[in-house]
């Protein structure tokens, strides 16, 4: 019997605002415990929230980027529950009237592009963090993260496989990064995902019993967890066992999902409109201003890269996967080099270094170790024949973390490619005279030895010989006998 999975995702994206959602505390990671706190985010008696306008703007940006309807007036609501990392005893969120509703995100699947509908996007505040101390049994609470703005992005149950879910997540993250509103770091928790999964017979339109999966801390976890859970549910159905509506946690060690220990206190969040905050009123003029400042989005940019730069679809896909990378590529290409060369360099050498250094979390290319201008110059030097590709790779490494211009570097290090015939002929002749046996072999037809001779000449010249010319000279000499 054939089954299909029905998956909906709830994503929490932490916003890259300077300050928290409802107070003037820093929203940045990494401060000592409880340094970023104040009467408001610690819920001291009498303190009141005031909404961060930029966080609202970020929500509108995402809404516009995903074709959502932006509510002219949306409402804050309190979600009431007791937990030590939630100081007010309620989370300020949105419930009945979210800021964005009814959008869409298009993902690429094997069967072509597919539209995943968004149910809603709403604003809320993050909670603090508790650290369990196994020695004493107590928990330590740090409220630095408490009150950091979040967007919750809820998809419709339109995803049909773990792979689709992963590509939806990648696409959503890509959009958030393009909009510069979230860094999308799953490991650090600035981009979090819960999934609702059910399975049903293929062709059926009824929905199966829904299971919520939590605790997936990377893209790989999401894929593995969903694969596991779908398989588990299918096996249940095949065995005729009921599927329990529950919340399950992904156990990354054992690679299984297992039921969360049931809470002894029943949940009843008692949502009601937040009386401390007026409704979020968004007028057309504000939306128009935000729309005018929207950056080019990934899909549009990918298409443009193919059209404008003549890049293969694959290159365009990789380069536009991140806004910073696309930005970087365009700056290199603007340096007057062949777009394909620029693409090759960015995708191979540059991306490798960026990944090695963990800078793929850093959205600002200013902090990358080589400027686009340097890379463009380096590629130009190859294109003009001033240096060889091999030298260029050495130069690339040497240029990292410097402000040096590639041209200066290769002059200083004497890496300029040698095309001078007199010099090269001398080297070629020396190699030929050192290897009489090989010369004889070559002349008897072992033409593959040419590469050996080229290598020897390159070694003698410290890699600086123009390989093209060396080739020609060798053939000339060897042929003549």
């Amino acid at each position, binding site marked *: 019997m054939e089954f299909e999975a029905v998956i909906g995702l709830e994503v929490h994206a932490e916003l890259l*605002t*300077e*300050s928290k959602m409802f*107070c*003037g*505390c*820093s929203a940045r990671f990494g*401060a*000592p*415990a*409880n*340094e*970023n*706190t*104040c009467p408001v985010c*610690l819920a*001291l008696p009498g303190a009141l929230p*005031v*909404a*961060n*306008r*930029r*966080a*609202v703007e970020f929500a509108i940006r995402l809404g516009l980027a995903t074709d959502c309807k932006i509510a002219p*007036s949306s*409402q804050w609501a309190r979600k009431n529950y*007791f*937990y*030590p990392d939630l100081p007010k005893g309620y989370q300020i969120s949105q419930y009945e009237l979210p800021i964005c509703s009814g959008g869409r995100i298009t993902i690429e699947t094997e069967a072509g592009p597919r539209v995943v509908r968004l149910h809603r996007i709403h604003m809320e505040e993050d909670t603090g963090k*508790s*650290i*369990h101390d196994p020695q004493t*049994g*107590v*928990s*330590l*609470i*740090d*409220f630095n993260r408490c009150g950091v703005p979040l967007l919750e992005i809820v998809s419709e149950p339109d995803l049909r496989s773990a792979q689709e879910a992963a590509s939806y997540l990648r696409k959503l993250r890509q959009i958030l990064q393009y909009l510069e509103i979230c860094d999308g770091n799953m490991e650090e928790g600035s981009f979090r995902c819960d999934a609702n999964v059910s399975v049903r017979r293929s062709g059926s339109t009824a929905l199966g019993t829904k299971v919520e999966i939590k605790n997936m801390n990377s893209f790989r976890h999401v894929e593995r967890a969903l694969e596991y859970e779908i398989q588990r549910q299918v096996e249940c159905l095949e065995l005729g066992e009921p599927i329990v509506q529950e919340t399950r946690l992904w156990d990354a060690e054992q690679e299984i999902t297992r039921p*969360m*220990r049931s*809470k002894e*206190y*029943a949940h*009843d969040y*008692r949502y009601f*409109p937040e*009386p401390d905050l*007026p*409704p*979020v*009123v968004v007028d057309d003029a504000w939306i128009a201003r935000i729309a005018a400042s929207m950056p080019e989005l990934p899909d549009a940019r990918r298409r443009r890269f193919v059209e404008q730069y003549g890049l293969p679809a694959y290159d365009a896909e990789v380069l536009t996967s991140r806004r910073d990378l696309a930005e970087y590529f365009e700056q290199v290409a603007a340096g007057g080099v062949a777009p394909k060369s620029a693409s090759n360099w960015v995708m191979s050498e540059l991306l490798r270094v960026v990944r090695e250094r963990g800078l793929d979390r850093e959205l600002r290319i200013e902090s990358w170790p080589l400027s686009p201008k340097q890379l463009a110059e380096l590629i130009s030097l190859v294109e003009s024949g001033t240096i060889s590709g091999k030298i260029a790779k050495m130069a690339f490494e040497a240029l990292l973390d410097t402000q040096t211009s590639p041209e200066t570097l290769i002059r200083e290090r004497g890496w300029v490619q040698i095309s001078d015939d007199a010099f090269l002929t001398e080297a070629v002749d020396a190699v030929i005279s050192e290897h009489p046996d090989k010369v004889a072999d070559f002349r008897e037809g072992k033409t593959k030895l040419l590469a050996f001779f080229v290598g020897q000449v390159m070694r003698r010249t410290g890699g600086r010989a123009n390989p093209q010319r060396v080739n020609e000279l060798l053939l000339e000499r060897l042929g003549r006998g």
Partner: protein
Amino acid sequence: MLTAAPMGLDRNKVREIAALARLALSPQEEESLTTQLERILSYFSRLSEVPTEDVPPATEALTRSFHSRDDAVTNTPRVEEFLESAPQRRGNFFVVPKIIE
């Protein structure tokens, strides 16, 4: 909605609500609250007499403008002052008894 407010506030319901509100009530409190709340709610059920079709809830009536703040860090760390009130602390952390998921 013209239907009468749902009734049926019994002792179990009182226990349920007390658990939700994190109030450890004594049996005497449970008992007296059951009687009092029942009486109060039965008086309050007169609300159901009022026709309110098409009447919007008064959630926006009092504040008309969207009052928001600029995204700026205006607070300086005062963690020591805040921790002074903590029932229990360790270093810069607030400490709570065992959390069980």
